């Protein structure tokens, strides 16, 4: 009887500890904000050879295989707009350097403040900007968001500076050979973009992140180091359709995540890119809620999460991904 009583008592204690923990955990989860999310196309890179974007999809003349018979694709440059309560968060900021338009054969660019206005937001109301990485087509226009706090990984900054000071010029190159530096560690970080990042630091509006960080309840930065660049980072966002994970160029292509193919290999460790894909599968329960930066199928029903889309400024497209309860549609 004594032993039995002891067992019962220990069971009671265990139940007493587990039950409140479960209840409090569930309550905490219930208190997480449900965010709304939109996607806007900063611009579109036109006629990019498919094989340069996804090596496994390289064009083979005469091939009838679906993975080999597409010569070129148009790549959107996507920005995530996330509203959690009173907080307005951007994931990536596209680019504003109009001069690049001719250099890259881009189309459909419009200023980010104008695009936000088309969604009914004010650029001054953006409170946080998380950049997936600091390449020029993802970290521009920061100076147009005067009140936003920038979140960038320390690893991203450290790696660029390391490369800049490396003695071998082919490694320290910053776009030093036209079309030839796509793989060098500092390539893609041009002066004007880095000055925008520095501008945020100078104004005391930058948070240098070391690894994982929760920036709002349930809104969490995850490191994805070397999944595209040295300090790439993902953003987990709780929504009414489950968790979303924004991936910038660690998730360049939705199809690549679905089919486990590497995409947009720059300063990329392809194993780390796959681990970033896996992170999205684990967080969201699949690949459908992984938000890609350059997916050619964006804004179509072939990339389901972006299918609720419309054409906005200068031919650029927007999509309403999900709305929080009570949030009105901003689709025009």
């Amino acid at each position, binding site marked *: 009887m004594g032993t039995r009583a002891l067992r019962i008592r220990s069971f009671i204690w265990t139940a007493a500890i587990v039950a409140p923990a479960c209840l409090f955990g569930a309550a905490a989860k219930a208190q997480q904000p449900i965010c709304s999310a939109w996607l806007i196309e900063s611009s579109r890179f036109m006629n990019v050879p498919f094989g340069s974007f996804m090596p496994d999809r390289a064009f083979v003349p005469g091939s009838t295989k679906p993975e080999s018979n597409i010569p*070129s694709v148009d790549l959107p440059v996507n920005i995530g707009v996330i509203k959690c309560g009173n907080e307005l968060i951007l994931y990536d900021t596209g680019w504003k350097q109009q001069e690049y338009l001719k250099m*890259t*054969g881009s189309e459909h660019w419009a200023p980010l403040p104008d695009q936000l206005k088309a969604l009914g937001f004010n650029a001054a109301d953006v409170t946080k900007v998380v950049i997936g990485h600091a390449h020029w087509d993802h970290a521009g226009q920061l100076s147009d968001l005067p009140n936003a706090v920038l979140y960038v990984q320390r690893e991203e900054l450290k790696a660029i500076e390391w490369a800049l000071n490396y003695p071998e010029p082919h490694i320290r190159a910053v776009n030093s050979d036209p079309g030839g530096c796509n793989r060098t560690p500092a390539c893609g970080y041009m002066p004007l973009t880095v000055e925008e990042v520095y501008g945020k630091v*100078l104004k005391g509006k930058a948070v240098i992140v070391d690894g994982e960080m929760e920036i709002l309840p349930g809104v969490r930065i995850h490191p994805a180091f070397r999944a595209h660049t040295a300090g790439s980072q993902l953003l987990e966002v709780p929504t009414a359709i489950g968790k979303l994970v924004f991936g910038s160029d660690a998730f360049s292509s939705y199809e690549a995540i679905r089919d486990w193919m590497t995409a947009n290999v720059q300063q990329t460790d392809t194993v780390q890119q796959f681990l970033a894909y896996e992170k999205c599968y684990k967080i969201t329960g699949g690949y459908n809620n992984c938000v890609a930066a350059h997916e050619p199928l964006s804004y179509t029903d072939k990339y389901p999460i972006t299918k609720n889309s419309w054409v906005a400024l200068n031919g650029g497209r927007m999509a309403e991904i999900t709305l929080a309860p009570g949030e009105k549609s901003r689709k025009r």
Partner: protein
Amino acid sequence: MLGGYAIQTIGMPGSRSLLLAGVVVALAATIGAAWLHEVRPRSVVKPAAQTVSTPAEQPQPRALTTDEERFATALWAVHREATRSAVAMSFAGIAYHTEDRDARALAQRIEPLARFFHNAELRVRTMNSPPSLSRTHEKYIDAMALYANAAAEMLKFTEDGDAQRLDAAHRLDVRASEDMLLVGEVLWPGQYKPH
């Protein structure tokens, strides 16, 4: 309230009904947590088909003449290092603010960049450019001068600690980089690729 009640029952041995209540609460909480976990929508999607992009007509930049090409090649020797040095100047500022705010370390980073931009301005000024590129040439000289002035402002900051100098230097940097981009658009239109 239910959880609070369950907690209050702990420590009352011999009460089977309260024990049962505790067990029920624990099970209910576990089921509740599992429900919250499982009820959210899961991603299930069929593979999508790919569409073929049809090449559109793109306006191509005008090809450079032989003289223009020669100038572009000569200027590239400066430009390749100017680009790196401009980025390095921003990083010097970032490092100062995000690391230990060591003015001496900042000065050590900026001094060689100041020398580089000063010399680059002089070097570019002495280059011969074809008349068709005279404005482009001037703009590049301006860019080097702006960078040199920015570096000078940053060095003054390391001496007097006046933070406004960093703001001024940053504004000069931005102007210089915009000028450099405008030159690049004419001379090296392939410099920046999709990333």
